């Protein structure tokens, strides 16, 4: 990989292995790199341990989304989903278990898949992408169960609300749609840009990040990042962050958000920004917390650079992996 390619690399997605010792990251060249977290965090780590243990080309297009289940790694790119076994990847065997592609209506252009989420209730995979629809794939039988139609522009992000068996999807058309996962009907449609407190017309109305905590939902993008109470469908706090946020997550009593700007923002639920921790990439695309392991509890962020920053203590950057 030449220096020019490294300069133009963007990391779009990350996922931790189920044992918590490895990190898989996908970039815009369609490659997935597996880094060994346990080697890099051990006391005798060298500069070599910050390089990937395995790099392979997974798709022809950029890998926009990665997701780990109990023993598999699912990667989405160029309209198809591939499944890899983590144990095989650790042994450096790069053969996908299966590759599936849903039935797209138009066969001319292949829509990309932007985001995936697991619905653990019925062991299905929910994903959304460029064809304006949300697809549901049953992981046990490997068949595409249903297609949720309703968005008028492509879907940026999906999330699953465990307690009420609902699927949330946010898209370019500015609407956050809440679907019932059993019947496939759109239960609610929230147009975030229509609320004055959240709207930022100078950025647009698209929703690029969505995450839910069953009672609460965070969404942002063109409009400011805002915290919504899902029962009453009302925005409770708006976060004064400049730039558009691309990924957010709830962590203990805080909210972590990454987006435009070389910093990870820590916010409180009340709406104030507690801290902004600087990182290497100029603009961040993905944020992932390692909840699968107790001794390697780290936060990793990646963005428009070939470096992936690792935070062992949330307040400062410890080191960076690089492709």
């Amino acid at each position: 990989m030449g220096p020019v390619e490294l300069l133009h690399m963007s990391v779009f997605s990350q996922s931790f292995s189920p044992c918590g010792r490895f990190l898989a990251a996908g970039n815009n060249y369609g490659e997935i790199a597996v880094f060994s977290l346990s080697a890099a965090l051990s006391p005798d780590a060298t500069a070599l341990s910050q390089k990937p243990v395995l790099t392979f080309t997974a798709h022809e297009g950029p890998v926009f989304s990665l997701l780990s289940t109990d023993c598999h790694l699912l990667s989405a790119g160029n309209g198809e989903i591939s499944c890899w076994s983590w144990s095989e990847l650790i042994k450096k065997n790069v053969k996908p278990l299966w590759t599936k592609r849903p039935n797209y209506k138009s066969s001319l252009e292949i829509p990309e898949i932007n985001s995936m989420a697991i619905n653990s209730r019925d062991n299905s995979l929910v994903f959304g992408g460029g064809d304006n629809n949300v697809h549901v794939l049953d992981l046990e039988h490997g068949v595409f169960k249903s297609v949720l139609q309703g968005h008028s522009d492509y879907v940026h992000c999906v999330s699953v609300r465990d307690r009420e068996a609902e699927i949330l999807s946010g898209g370019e058309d500015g609407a956050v749609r809440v679907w019932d996962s059993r019947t496939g009907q759109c239960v609610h449609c929230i147009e975030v840009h229509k609320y004055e407190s959240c709207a930022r017309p100078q950025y647009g109305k698209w929703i690029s990040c969505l995450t839910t905590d069953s009672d609460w939902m965070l969404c942002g993008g063109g409009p400011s990042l805002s915290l919504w109470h899902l029962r009453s469908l009302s925005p409770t706090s708006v976060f004064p962050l400049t730039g558009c946020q691309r990924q957010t997550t709830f962590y203990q009593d805080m909210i972590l958000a990454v987006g435009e700007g070389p910093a990870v923002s820590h916010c409180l639920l009340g709406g104030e920004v507690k801290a902004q921790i600087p990182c290497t990439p100029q603009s961040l695309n993905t944020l992932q917390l390692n909840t699968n392991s107790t001794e390697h509890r780290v936060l990793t962020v990646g963005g428009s650079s070939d470096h992936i920053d690792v935070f062992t203590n949330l307040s400062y950057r410890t080191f960076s992996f690089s492709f």
Partner: protein
Amino acid sequence: MGAVTDDEVIRKRLLIDGDGAGDDRRINVLLKGFTKWCNSPGTPEEGFTQYQRMMGILAQCEFSMGKTLMVYDMNLREMENYEKIYTNIEQNITSAHDKIAECKKEIQRAKRIRKNRQEYDALAKVIQQHPDRHETLKQLEALDKELQQLSRIKENVDAKLELRKKQFHVLLSTIQELQQTLENDDKSDNDENSHESPAQNGE
């Protein structure tokens, strides 16, 4: 085996008193002086001074031995002391570890509480924006009463309108009837006149 222990003994003796400046030399001097004193032919005063000297050397040796014994005792007691301190510090370390674990749990609990409190605050903020339920109920009641009043007024007005309509109807119909009767009367008068005149003409 005998050679080894001899070596050990020699090594130890060299270590303790290698240059012969201390007790070893004193004991040798004592022994030599004793043998010389035993075999000396000199005067009793000399013998006495010799004897005094030997007693002095003996006292020095005893003194030095007493000191060594005390130092040995002291070392033993210091060792005990250190052992005690060591176990104490170990206990402190384990209790500190326990306290740290407790504090970590406390922090998790406190963070959960803080999260709940913040969620509550956020919801409360939204709820405050909506008007009070009692006020809205009161407003609703007042509006209800107004509505009832207005509908009552409407009913009254309607009734009055009906009544007036009926009255006008009665009036108009009586007028019509009167008109009819008058017309009929007129016609019958005219008829009578016209009957009479041809009758008159005919006669």
